[in-house]
């Protein structure tokens, strides 16, 4: 798999599970005030007739997390493009409206209220990410389903019927790392994570699972992000002589740490990383300083087999260049793909419910997805799904990221692919998969 396009999906933020990046002193302030013109609900990005059904993309479009908005918008626009090409939803066209949640959770509340009061025909929301705890209840109160990119464990047992999540929870991410390490004979390890909210949701489940599988964690280093040096931490990590190092760090912290780890004795043990280390910003920051000395395998939520859904998603991206800058950079972006699937599932649910009323169609979201049942037709696209529904069939949508199964907490499960980095070519090659069945077992494992 080639990750050379800047798939910024959960950059530094792992599925945006916390105010990860913005532990920073002034980042929050930046987010408050950044580019005033953008703040609040932004301009509609596609068709605006009164009969158009609107998907609100409630993600940050300004401030330090500003790129996430475009990640989500790209997924939404790609989906609505396919939906409209197939005739729309029950006679309505579908469009996406960017609603700037800003990068500060405190500003997200007025922003979501503004979206809810000003966007007409709002039938679905892509988001919220980081500010989900304060804003998701407000969206739910309007009975509008949403697809969130928040990986926080607090949603592992989500009870909000309108809240759905397709990105891998951070708790699963940690367990997948432990599972892969043990499966490949790494019995001793050191964990190096930044101590921001997002990264800190990984090490706990990771350590518990690793111990459960018989591994020994020699050191757990939780470092302050963004420091100019991690020499002591690097010294401790390398001196412990681990068989593998688990890591999730933002690009800048990672580049500092790994360059200084090299300083200790000139070589690095194998490294197991999360999806973050497959993203272009991470590679841009780290590879110039460690070059080919980084032996990295990253576990990323994805189905290694290219699907029709993925091709449709990528094809859709190519046509939205006027609304999202360089959209093909999100070709393999997990979050954008999840948003594409989320919007498509919502549109199919409307067809299944024969209603665009959010409260009415919401229960159908889990009726067009889920485990295969007798007589169900597998559909890989919105158009296939609509045709099957019109023919009176029960459908199961297999999206751009493969089969979609929401559990009782509305958390979707997907396989994880192990990607080995070729640091010279700056590409990744799939070297294995943790299948959905194993993911489900790992989910059941106590953290």
């Amino acid at each position, binding site marked *: 798999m080639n990750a050379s396009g*800047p798939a*910024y999906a959960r950059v530094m933020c792992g599925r945006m599970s916390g105010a990860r990046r913005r532990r*920073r*002193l*002034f*980042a929050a*302030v*930046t987010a408050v*005030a*950044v*580019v005033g013109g953008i703040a609040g609900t932004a301009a509609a990005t596609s068709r605006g007739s009164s009969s158009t059904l609107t998907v609100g993309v409630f993600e940050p479009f*300004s401030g*330090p997390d*500003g*790129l996430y908005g475009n990640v989500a918008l790209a997924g939404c626009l790609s989906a609505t493009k396919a939906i409209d090409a197939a005739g729309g939803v029950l006679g309505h066209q579908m469009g996406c409206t960017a609603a700037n949640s800003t990068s500060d959770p405190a500003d997200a509340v007025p922003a979501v209220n503004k979206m809810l009061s000003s966007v007409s025909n709002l039938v679905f929301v892509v988001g919220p990410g980081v500010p989900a705890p304060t804003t998701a209840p407000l969206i739910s109160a309007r009975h509008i389903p949403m697809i969130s990119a928040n990986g926080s464990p607090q949603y592992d047992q989500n009870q909000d019927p309108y809240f759905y999540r397709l990105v891998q929870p951070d708790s699963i991410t940690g367990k997948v790392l432990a599972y892969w390490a043990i499966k490949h004979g790494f019995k001793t390890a050191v964990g190096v994570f930044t*101590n921001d909210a997002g990264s800190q949701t990984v090490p706990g489940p990771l350590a518990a699972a690793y111990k459960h599988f018989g591994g020994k964690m020699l050191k757990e*280093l*939780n*470092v*302050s*992000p*963004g*420091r*100019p*040096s*991690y*020499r*002591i*931490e690097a*010294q*401790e990590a390398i*001196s412990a002589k681990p068989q593998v190092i688990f890591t999730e760090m933002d*690009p*800048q912290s990672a*580049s*500092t740490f*790994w*360059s*200084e780890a*090299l*300083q200790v004795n*000139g070589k690095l043990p194998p490294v197991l990383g999360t999806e973050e280390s497959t993203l*272009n*910003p*991470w590679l*841009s*920051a*780290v590879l*110039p*300083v460690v*070059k080919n000395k980084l032996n990295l395998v990253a576990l990323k939520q994805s189905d290694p087999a290219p699907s029709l859904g993925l091709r449709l998603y990528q094809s859709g991206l190519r046509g939205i260049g006027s609304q999202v800058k360089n959209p093909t950079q999100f070709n393999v972006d997990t979050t954008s793909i999840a948003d594409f699937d989320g919007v498509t599932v919502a549109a199919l649910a409307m067809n299944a419910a024969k209603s665009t009323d959010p409260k009415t169609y919401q229960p159908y979201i889990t009726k067009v997805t889920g485990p295969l049942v007798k007589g169900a037709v597998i559909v890989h696209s919105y158009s296939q799904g609509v045709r099957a529904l019109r023919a009176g069939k029960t459908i199961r949508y297999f999206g751009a990221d493969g089969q979609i199964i929401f559990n009782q907490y509305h958390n979707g499960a997907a396989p994880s692919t192990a990607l080995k980095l070729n640091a010279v070519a700056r590409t990744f090659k799939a070297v294995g998969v943790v299948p959905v069945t194993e993911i489900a077992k790992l989910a059941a494992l106590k953290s």
Partner: protein
Amino acid sequence: MNLVVLALGYGVVSASIIAMGAVGFSLQYGMSQIFNVSYGAMMTVSAYAAYVVDVRLHAGLWLGIAGAGATGCLLAVASERLLFTPFLRRGATAFVIVMVSLALDIFVQNAIVAVSGFGFVSYGLAPGHVYRFLGTDWTSLQFVLVGISIAAMLFVGLTMTKTKLGKAMRATAADPELAGSCGIKVRRSTTLTWALSGILCGLGGVALGISSASFSNLSGDDFLFVVFAAAVIGGLGNAYGAVLGALVIGITTEEVAIVSPGLQDVAAFAILAFMLLARPGGLIRLGGRVRADTVTV
């Protein structure tokens, strides 16, 4: 290896980077009593300037460092002349000035994003050969950083103490009206102080970018807290104090990393809080040493 000794060596490296920022920041405050929150953003711009010169234009790191110093200088003088001074002339309070500098910080941060986009850039420098001595180890790159810092500190120190210009700067900082009545060109002294602080800001920015191995539009702002802490601990407005503050912060945070890496920022904040409570005037004042307001011209 003894981690405590190692941390001491690493602390000196960190301190050398902090010192450049802290001395520049302290000079600005000492001259104009402006708590310039946009200082971090200016460090970032300077680091980007070095990146453009070194990586994009392939002109080499040394020219990049010079470019960073020049950029910092230009930004500092421009902000002082075109932004802060007009506000001060209108009688803006200290709070208003902080807000103005905050606005400038936000503007600059977003301007960086507008020009270069989100993401991280790197000078792509290998750490170089590792030299082990006295129980610690430094790379050749770290020697370069410490060397630049020492050279910059010496330059500032000599300028401030051995030149007419330096004396004029200190006199202006101590009492602008009196300095003016003594024939010192206050306006010129102020501008030159900001230019000097800008050069240090630029050097600090590029040193941060080199040390961190990569940086983004927020790197300078992220780093600003330790710069503040060093400047305040040393005694705001006191260049020598800032160097001492940088050493305290740099070494302490590295030593704390032995106990718990996550507590480095906490340690810096704890020292800052303690100093603000115990000696708001800073370390140098504690010893009654050199201060701008004790200088006679």
